[in-house]
């Protein structure tokens, strides 16, 4: 028999909030990447607007966590779940911020023709999106192995980033406008690399929550 059924129900609600927030963040990153591919500034505007909602959800999760800590004195796995929720909410919020960053790039580049077709950036975006999905699913399933597997994908993202970095540096010349666009694209690659890093943080949070162990997934 569970002697703290009420409290444990609140923790379940907290986890649902995280998942709901994760869903919105996934949506934001998808839309941001798509807006860049198609240089669709209306879609980009929408991502920027929706970020307010995600910020509110973050605050909501934080408040819920603090309230549970203050009123319920959680211990052991309960404590770790709440600690992980705080951390994961922060990481999700950062990912959403990067979605906004990417969308703002879209808006800055709107009306321009791209100097080269985008190949590696979409691949990188695809992996980053997958990682976010994986991270959220490992959270739902409390699956340590899936969370740990994020490290492998993060390595791929890191490799792609250095390829993109070298490519872009080579493409740079003396044309100001060209260099400006290339720098923006480099920054997008940087954002995506950060998104991947945040998903590994989420994975670390999942591992801590489930097993109490600290593991660095971003080596």
């Amino acid at each position, binding site marked *: 028999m569970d002697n703290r059924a009420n409290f*444990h129900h609140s923790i379940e609600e907290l986890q649902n909030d995280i998942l709901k927030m994760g869903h919105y963040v996934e949506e934001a990153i998808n839309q941001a990447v798509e807006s860049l591919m198609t240089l669709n500034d209306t879609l980009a505007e929408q991502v920027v607007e929706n970020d307010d909602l995600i910020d509110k959800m973050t605050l909501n999760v934080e408040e819920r966590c603090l309230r549970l800590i203050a009123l319920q004195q959680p211990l052991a796995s309960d404590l770790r779940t709440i600690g992980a929720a705080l951390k994961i909410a922060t990481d999700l919020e950062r990912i959403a911020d990067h979605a906004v960053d990417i969308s703002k790039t879209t808006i800055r580049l709107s009306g321009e023709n791209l100097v080269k077709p985008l190949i590696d950036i979409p691949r990188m975006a695809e992996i980053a999106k997958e990682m976010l999905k994986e991270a959220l699913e490992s959270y739902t399933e409390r699956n340590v192995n899936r969370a740990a597997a994020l490290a492998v994908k993060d390595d791929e993202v890191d490799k792609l980033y250095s390829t993109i970095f070298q490519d872009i540096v080579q493409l740079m010349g003396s044309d100001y406008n060209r260099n400006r666009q290339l720098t923006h694209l480099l920054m997008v690659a940087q954002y995506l690399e950060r998104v991947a890093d945040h998903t590994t943080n989420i994975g670390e949070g999942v591992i801590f929550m489930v097993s*109490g162990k600290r593991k660095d997934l971003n080596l």
Partner: protein
Amino acid sequence: MIDIQSLDLFYGEFHALKNVSMFLPEKSITAFIGPSGCGKSTLLRTLNRMNDMIKTVKIKGTVTIHGNNIYEPEVNVELLRKRVGMVFQQPNPFPKSIYDNVAYGPRIHGTKKKSELDDIVEKSLRDAALWDEVKGDLKKSAYGLSGGQQQRLCIARALAVNPEVLLMDEPTSALDPISTLKIEELIQQLKEKYTIVIVTHNMQQAGRVSDQTAFFLNGEMVEFSETDTIFSNPVDQRTEDYVTGRFG
């Protein structure tokens, strides 16, 4: 400093402690937690042989304090209890003056000189963080003190015989939250001079005051480790279930 090895304890047929082994380092605070009837108080009372008073108790194994097995036949129980003091669940001052309560132990053990007793009483009350509140009222009855003050008086009384170990059996379960915090604060100060073992039903209290925590269930020591490990990341599922309230 306190080394318990393969300790079994029976109340008649009832096996109350099952093969308990643990080492409690000097000048540390150890908390015993677990549900009612798990054996934590029984174990505490084996450390100053208060269980001797129950006729049906049988003990196997050893409890060694500073290298001496306290269950050797030649051990003098009165001297053992002088070294291993105890504070009880209910504040239990004697119906005497504050002074006489604290001086009780030293008098029992042969201190007669007034000046010597005065010094002991003041020092013990200071160590128990009670001196400033009672220094003008030493001749007044201990029953006039509040519950929290009475409990600190009982701590002072235990300190007056200059023990090495202080056993506390749920020392704050009868007190209000502020008195409880004062006692907890005091326990942490006392750690500098004494080895402390505390039985508590309040897991937050164990978390606040102790260095290491042992979890007991049905007479068995399930888990014994650093307090933060027990409360943030216990190894045994039974500990996990107990501290998160999923027990039973």
